[in-house]
């Protein structure tokens, strides 16, 4: 959805070559702003990632250098956190897709007959956006705590070991990530499924294809652009998230993700080079994964 928005080539048809001074006036403030507060920060992050501590300097004092070892150091120290981040983010993305697809299919295809109900269901899907992300996560923490009805119930039914916990475990973190990013998955899926021409599904049936074959060979390919947008919109924020994995929220001692490590290095121990090199690694891995994924799924025009 968001990713295809810049790619459309309407300008060529609509715009005869008009005064480029006006274009410059319209573009300059915003572009300058982004250069100053998006691009320059990225560059300064790269520079920081190579800095070295000042000899005899205070904590948090660094000087410009070209210290490659910062990268090997953080990979050695936090390799586990890096792997965990991507593992959790991939799991959350898969669960969010499995959760959202039938939901988006019902709202976008089945509910077309009742536009009002369709719109109300969409409002319910985006409703979580209107209440603080942090409070939602804390609500789950209470609802799934050891004393909660759900967990005591599961234990009473022997579906969970009596001394087991849910909050603080990797499962809880993946659950939280999945829950928090479901609307990002459902909305782009809905946007493509809503435009799905159901006559094509009928044609599949008329040609004696089994429903599952029709779903696999017609519905899925036609909704591919929504799947790709949803996966990216879920995976990217999930990989960088540090709320769910935080110990005060759904995480525990063994669940810290890259975001947690970047935060504690930057804001607590003032180890700016380590935080910066971790950020660059996170961004680089995401860019590589996104490019490969978009190429593989055959929707290159999205970027």
């Amino acid at each position, binding site marked *: 959805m968001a990713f295809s928005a810049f790619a459309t080539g309407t300008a060529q048809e609509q715009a005869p070559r008009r005064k480029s001074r006006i274009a410059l006036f*319209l573009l300059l403030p915003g572009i300058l702003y982004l250069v100053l507060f998006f691009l320059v920060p990225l560059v*300064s992050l790269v520079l920081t990632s190579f800095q070295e501590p000042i000899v005899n300097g205070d904590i948090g004092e660094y000087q410009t250098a070209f210290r490659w070892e910062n990268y090997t150091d953080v990979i050695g120290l936090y390799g586990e956190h890096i792997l965990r981040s991507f593992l959790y983010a991939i799991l959350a993305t898969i669960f969010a897709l499995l959760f959202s697809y039938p939901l988006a*299919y019902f709202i976008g295809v089945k509910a077309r*007959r009742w536009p009002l109900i369709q719109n109300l269901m969409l409002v319910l899907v985006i409703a979580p956006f209107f209440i603080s992300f942090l409070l939602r996560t804390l609500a789950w923490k209470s609802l799934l705590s050891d004393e909660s009805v759900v967990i005591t119930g599961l234990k009473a039914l022997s579906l969970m070991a009596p001394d087991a916990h849910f909050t603080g475990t990797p499962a809880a973190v993946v659950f939280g990530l999945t829950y928090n990013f479901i609307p990002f998955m459902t909305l782009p899926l809905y946007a493509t499924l809503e435009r799905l021409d*159901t006559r094509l599904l009928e044609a599949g049936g008329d040609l004696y294809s089994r429903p599952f074959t029709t779903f696999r060979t017609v519905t899925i390919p036609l909704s591919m652009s929504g799947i790709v947008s949803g996966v990216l919109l879920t995976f990217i924020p999930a990989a*960088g998230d*540090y709320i769910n994995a935080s110990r005060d929220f759904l995480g525990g001692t063994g669940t810290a993700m890259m975001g947690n490590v970047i935060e504690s290095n930057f804001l607590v121990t003032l180890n700016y080079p380590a935080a910066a090199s971790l950020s660059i690694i996170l*961004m680089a891995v995401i860019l590589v994964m996104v490019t490969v994924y978009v190429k593989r799924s055959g929707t290159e025009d999205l970027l």
Partner: protein
Amino acid sequence: MLGEAVTAEKPPLRARRLSWGFGSWLLPAYTIIALVFLLIPIAYTFVFSFNNSVKSNIVWRGFTLDKWANVCDKAEVCEAFGNSLVIGVVATVCATILGTMIAIALVRYRFRFRSAISLLLFLPMATPEVVLGAGLAAEFLTAGVEKGLVTIIIAHTMFCVSFVVVTVKARVSTLDPALEEAGRDLYGSPSQVFWRITFPLLLPGIIAAALLSFALSFDDFIITNFNAGTTSTFPKYIYISAARGIPAEANVIASAVFLLAIILVLISQVSSAMRRKRLAKIG
């Protein structure tokens, strides 16, 4: 965003039901369960805003309206909320102006470095928030800028601009250039054409973009945390007090904001449904 998706043209309805079992009752039942699941934490937050809690708000201690009546008894909650409102409004105004100008330029004008500019607009949306936050914080650190309200506003404006561009651009590309041409043919000055024709037609898109920006800014925690210094915002207050327990007053504010937002969305839905009906009658 929502409005655009909803008013899009739909292919004709199929007459026959799909024959596979997935369609009959399983899917509607699943949808209801899924929607209820999405709403559980909201209901929890809302219910616990009426809790007669003492310190932490975890155990139910009976119903009270006290917290709603005296939200600002917890001064830090109200102060954080006030900061969030100020930041949200200022960042929204800045991002909406900058983003709308870019959106108009992108659709209406041809210029060099077009793909570079598109990439520059796309990247902030594809960058994880930790990286955006840490990058800005590193820049402020190098430049020796003290972090506070201003640095939060700068940060929020930055990540909202791209979302404004996407939202407004969708609206600009649906605009018929013939309308503006007609204005010019009737001897309208460029500024008259813009303010009397272009701007009113763009307004729904601009309003949608502004609401989106405000929502993004108001709920942002990660980028804020890196650039706030000692300044508190509503999400930051919740993060800090999570360890010792959130007061019910925070639930009150979150619930009130939620109700307000839902009412606004429902009003816009109903009014657009009524407009469609009117248009259908004329047609």
